[in-house]
């Protein structure tokens, strides 16, 4: 971006920003670290942004996953609590809230009051979207400018687009990590139940299916999970340490 000598905030070349985000190795960074990076980069590169936060929509609720400071987090929370405000609107509509001068906007009275108290002069929300679904927003708060310049909102928008891609991948990766863990637990349980069946088969000379029936009936009668009964049985046949 060409330098401007009219004193407006300069946004450095967007290239390194996009590259830095895009180069994040998902296997080595947690989602939280990633969002911290988004927040700190946005604050450094978007003119007028004195505070930045990321709001995410999870299970139908909004939360601030990351913020550059507590003031910004509190102002996000005010919006969530009353379900209205520039960032809430950004997420609901999927459209970037064009910069809002805090003073005198009648749409969000609670937010305006809270923001004024904290000397915030303008706010902008930029949507984070994945496959046409708005999953959150990058929220820009300023205590210095009355409105964010169009070129700064452009930078924010570019930023949000990059962040959305990486976020989508990170979220997908995290859910596969959860699956990995759940699968591992299921396989461990399966093995223990198999061992228990084997023990019953050896003790009673029955088939594997009959061993399962026995465990299942016992668990029904005792009102306990079959897995727990199996664990106890397997424990009970092992030698005590001498």
């Amino acid at each position, binding site marked *: 971006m060409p330098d401007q000598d009219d004193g407006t905030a300069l946004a450095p070349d967007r290239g390194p920003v996009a590259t830095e985000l895009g180069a994040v190795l998902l296997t080595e960074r947690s989602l939280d670290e990633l969002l911290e990076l988004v927040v700190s980069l946005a604050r450094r590169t978007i003119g007028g942004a004195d505070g930045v936060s990321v709001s995410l929509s999870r299970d139908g609720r909004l939360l601030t996953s990351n913020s550059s400071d507590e003031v910004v987090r509190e102002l996000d929370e005010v919006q969530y609590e009353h379900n209205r405000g520039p960032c809430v609107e950004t997420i609901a509509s999927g459209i970037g809230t064009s910069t809002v001068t805090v003073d005198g906007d009648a749409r969000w009275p609670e937010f305006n009051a809270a923001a004024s108290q904290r000397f915030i002069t303008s706010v902008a929300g930029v949507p984070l979207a994945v496959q046409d679904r708005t999953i959150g927003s990058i929220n820009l708060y300023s205590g210095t400018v009355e409105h964010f310049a169009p070129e700064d909102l452009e930078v924010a928008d570019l930023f949000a687009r990059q962040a959305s891609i990486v976020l989508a991948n990170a979220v997908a990766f995290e859910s596969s990590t959860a699956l990995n863990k759940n699968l591992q637990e*299921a*396989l461990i349980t*399966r093995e223990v*139940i198999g061992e228990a069946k084997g023990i019953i088969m050896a003790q009673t000379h029955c088939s594997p299916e009959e061993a*399962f029936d026995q465990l*299942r009936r016992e668990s029904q009668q005792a*009102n306990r999970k*079959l897995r727990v009964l199996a664990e106890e049985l397997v424990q009970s046949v092992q030698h005590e340490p001498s």
Partner: protein
Amino acid sequence: MDSFLQTAFEHTGLSPIDLWLRYVALGGSIPPQDLLAQIARDGAELDAYQRDVLALALNERFHELDMDTPVPYVRD
């Protein structure tokens, strides 16, 4: 014709993959897509053991939710 197993599954609030993981943990060996297809068809082609493992997975979940355990065991 509605599938009883399908209705039961829907009442558990479990995602398909979560149900399958519970079923596998209890000793089931049918892959997830096939299991879901069988549930939709009320388990007509499931052998008795696989069907009972599924029944147990569903019933244990109902028990967690403090609900009645309605799925019968075919091997009883």
